[in-house]
């Protein structure tokens, strides 16, 4: 409890220190703040008693905040949220160090907001109270909007505004739904309570027609954040315009809030709705995979390419979640962590060459293996991890997501029936082939081939900090931990998978029954039944 609050509040304390301290020491204060947060969380994780026991939720009921509405300061982790919080806390100091040379103006504000951002992300993962979660989830928007709007590229204001409005609209629906479930709890018990477990118990008791709408409203909120096709349009622009570290946190931590929201709220709270809409979401996820991959193929802006590949990868992650069996769910959670590592690292790599060449256009720059061999090796490693090369971390998650989709069948022998099946897996698998293609094309242009450099010495000279041609020690120090993590998780995924498994099973506890119900109700093909389903469940 104390350690969790330390990891949440320490960055905020550091942010105040940054705000009142001198400009010179701002970056080091920020670094210390994020390190302390990571340290507290690591100690907590080290002593975490529930790695393999999902039933034992080490929840701490915090002091009451608004007793009349049942809002409390209660925090606690299960394995999944702890892993995601660790991922965010792990990336924060790397991002801070990564910004040392990129951010030269308004540094105090930058580091201050970055600390606040980190703190609210950890709060969202740690919250055991739905309103507390919402506070963390929603407040991430404020620092991220400012980071993009102040420190971003030429279209930064449009990008920031678009991101804010999309997410804000979505999360208003989510908030209303949370309060609605709280209201149902109030009706059943007579008092307001926003504890997530309590709400989950209440919500699963609702009639299936209600759960359908609860699920749909949650999906509106979380699909924007994931982002799921067709609500993804804010993301590439935001990524393109954000400063490097902003992109890293956006892709690695903030988008995970969307998938985590599905894991924590939408799926377990409304199993009937989840079963009803399973194939619908899966189809959207597959469209996202294929569509984003095709865009990546023709993309010449390296950063936008990675951004779109994020859309595709998270589509796969959603597909794994909505396979609604433990294999897929484990894979999805594992993939959340690993996508955070490899995509974050890719954004950092792109940022490093952008700082040197002031362009991200792969038609202008290329063949950098000759100029920056160290950078090129890291770039190749992370790209291969992102493609899902066996032996690297991306592979395990992708394989499990696809495997889960494959066995998500009517007569699956797993005890977890589903409506997806091999065809979904095959089409989504095409996306992986595309991924290999566009990422290797990116590598081919950027790393290998003839050396192409823009003659942009003016921009070079004006930048405040002159960087060496290849990576400096600081940059290598940023990328090395990420590389180690990618390789280690590629070879040793089992401890983490074992830890995730009980949580995944717990989340899916209600699904076999609900999916059976759904399948018995709907004869005919799964897709055709979606439309009929809507009117049917209204009539219930």
């Amino acid at each position, binding site marked *: 409890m104390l350690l969790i609050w330390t990891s949440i509040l320490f960055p905020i304390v550091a942010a105040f220190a940054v705000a009142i301290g001198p400009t010179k020491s701002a970056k080091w204060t920020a670094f210390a703040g994020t390190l302390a947060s990571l340290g507290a969380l690591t100690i907590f994780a080290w002593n975490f008693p529930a790695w393999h026991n999902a039933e034992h939720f080490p929840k701490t009921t915090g002091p009451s905040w608004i*007793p*009349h*509405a049942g809002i409390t300061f209660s925090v606690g982790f299960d394995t999944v949220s702890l892993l995601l919080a660790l991922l965010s806390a792990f990336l924060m100091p790397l991002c801070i160090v990564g910004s040392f040379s990129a951010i030269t103006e308004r540094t105090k504000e930058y580091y201050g907001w970055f600390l606040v951002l980190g703190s609210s992300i950890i709060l969202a993962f740690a919250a055991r109270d739905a*309103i507390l979660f919402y506070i963390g989830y929603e407040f991430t928007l404020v620092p991220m909007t400012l980071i993009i709007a102040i420190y971003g590229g030429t279209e930064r204001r449009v990008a*920031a505004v678009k991101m*804010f*409005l999309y997410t*804000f609209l979505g999360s208003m629906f989510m908030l209303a739904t949370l309060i609605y479930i709280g*209201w149902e709890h*109030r009706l059943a018990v007579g008092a307001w309570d926003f504890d997530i477990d309590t709400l989950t118990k209440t919500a699963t008791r609702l009639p299936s027609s209600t759960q359908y709408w609860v699920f749909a409203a949650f999906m509106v909120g979380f699909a924007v954040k994931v982002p799921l096709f067709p609500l993804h349009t804010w993301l590439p622009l935001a990524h393109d315009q954000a400063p490097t570290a902003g992109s890293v946190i956006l892709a690695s931590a903030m988008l995970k809030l969307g998938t985590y929201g599905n894991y924590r709220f939408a799926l377990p709270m409304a199993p009937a709705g989840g079963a009803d809409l399973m194939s619908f979401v899966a189809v959207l996820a597959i469209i996202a995979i294929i569509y984003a991959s095709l865009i990546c193929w023709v993309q010449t802006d390296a950063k936008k390419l990675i951004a779109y590949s994020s859309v595709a990868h998270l589509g796969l992650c959603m597909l794994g979640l909505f396979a609604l069996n433990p294999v897929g769910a484990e894979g999805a959670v594992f993939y959340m962590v690993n996508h955070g590592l490899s995509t974050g690292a890719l954004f950092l790599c792109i940022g490093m060459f952008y700082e040197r060449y002031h362009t991200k256009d792969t038609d202008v720059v290329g063949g950098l293996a000759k100029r920056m061999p160290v950078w090129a090796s890291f770039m190749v490693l992370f790209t291969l991890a992102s493609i899902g090369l066996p032996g690297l971390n991306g592979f395990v998650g992708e394989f499990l997501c696809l495997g889960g989709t494959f066995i998500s069948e009517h007569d699956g022998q797993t005890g977890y029936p589903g409506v997806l099946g091999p065809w979904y897996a095959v089409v989504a698998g095409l996306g992986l082939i595309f991924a290999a293609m566009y990422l290797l094309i990116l590598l081919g242009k950027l790393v290998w081939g003839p050396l192409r450099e823009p003659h942009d010495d003016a921009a070079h000279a004006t930048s405040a900090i002159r960087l060496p041609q290849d990576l400096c020690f600081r940059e290598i120090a940023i990328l090395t931990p990420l590389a180690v993590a990618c390789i280690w998780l590629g070879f040793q995924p089992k401890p983490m998978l074992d830890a995730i498994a009980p949580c995944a099973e717990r989340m899916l506890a209600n699904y076999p029954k609900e999916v059976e119900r759904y399948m018995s109700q709907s004869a005919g093909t799964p897709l055709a039944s979606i439309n009929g389903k809507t009117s049917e469940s209204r009539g219930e």
Partner: protein
Amino acid sequence: MIEAMSPRLILLAPEMILFVAAVTVAILGLSKNHGIRASLPFITCAALIASIAAVPLTWTNENAQAANLLLPTLGRFVKPLLAGVGVLLVLLSVGSVDRKMEESVARGRMAFDPQRVVRGEFYAFFLLSIMGAMLLCNAQDLIWLFLAIELVSLPTYIMVAIGGSGNRNQEAAVKYFFLGAMSTAVFLYGFALLYGSTGSLQFLEIRSALAAQSAGSGIDTLATIGIVLILLGLCFKITAVPMQFYAPDVYEGAPTHVTAFLAFVPKTAGFTAMVLILSCVGWSGHTLIDTDGIRIPYTGLPTPIAAILWMIAILTMTLGNIGALLQSSVKRMLAYSSVAHSGYLILGLIAGATAGIEALYFYLLAYGVMTTASFAALAAIERRGEEINSFSDLAGLRLRHPVMAWMLAISAASLVGMPPFIGFFGKIYLFIAAFEADQFGLVLAAVLNSAISGLYYLKLAIVPLVAPPSARSEEVTSVPSRWPFIAAVVCGVGTIFLSAIAGTLIGAAKSSAQASPMVLTASQEALPTASTH
């Protein structure tokens, strides 16, 4: 007789303090001594703080019971709320009233002329208006209600005219006055109809009469029309559709510190009057779950009244938000935002006893602090001696006036309902109240409207913080007085601090609403009244 009067008089202690202070500042304003004239706002502040202190001392349960009020605990929360936000509003106005004249006198360009100063009057009217709003809490009958609400409004017409130095002030004041007079006529007509139907001006008797009617064949048409007219008239005070049309013009034309006053005090008074009138009607079916655990359908207000309030709520929030989207003037945008917030607040009225009323007053507190923060930030800066008006004046404000830029951003975040600012908790609590009243549709409307409001509040935060400075904004300087700056910082910090103690504040709002018998269960009430009449 005296014994019967004394608890009522004791309950009026805060108002008496304000009245004495109003007379005092009106006289002291004529003093030749510059120091005394400069101290007027602080005397006003002291009086307001003293009146806050007087409330818990005098507003005891015994006194409130003895005074035979309709809502015996309402004043315990509303009076400190008015006076507390009033203190901040005074700080906003420091240095603005009589500014040109005081500057000329200080430079020796002209001699002090007591016939031309208005500062004393301004603060006297300021106090009288707040006093009127406080008096509403003690209202026992329609006449008192009418006098109190007019006491809120009449000084504001003059404050708009004399609070600043521009020509637009007069124009705004005239507009405000004529439209205000029209609204007064509307609700006075409503009083007449209500009196005609119930035969009494006393709230408690009206309540009994309406209870008897509803136990019979339902509340009669005359009374319903009367109540609807009263509500429509009061819509002017709370800037709700269909009486909202004056808001942008008057808010823009009035001096900024008076605009802040208009956005809060008449609104609080209007809502208090509405709560009183609707309490005469009563919200029925308030107990959600009876002793046997069976859910009782919530019927709330009688259908015609509820339907009208429902329409007013939806139209007000939608028109307010859409209007605000289209503005290029900050003050007009804030005027429309004030309209939109009234729409949200009506949710509380519809939800009614007692969760809705709590939520209403808690939201008013939140709204008072956050909207004052934005107006204070605007009042703390000026361009070539003129008020800030357009967004282009604010572009890049952060470079020259970082604190004010941040305060604008904080107030915008709070107004849009971003956690963890106080506006978020206000909104959550309103939604909770609306859910308790089974008003899903209204919650959905409010949610969609909040999402729309994100568009323009974001502008209020992004333009000062991020936009590059324009030629106009280069000329922005801070006003000579530091007090608006301090008020902005206090309000800005308040939006965060108050959410930390939101539980306590809601508890206070709850205790003031809960002890009041606002709920009319027709069958229970009708029987004893039928025997007494």
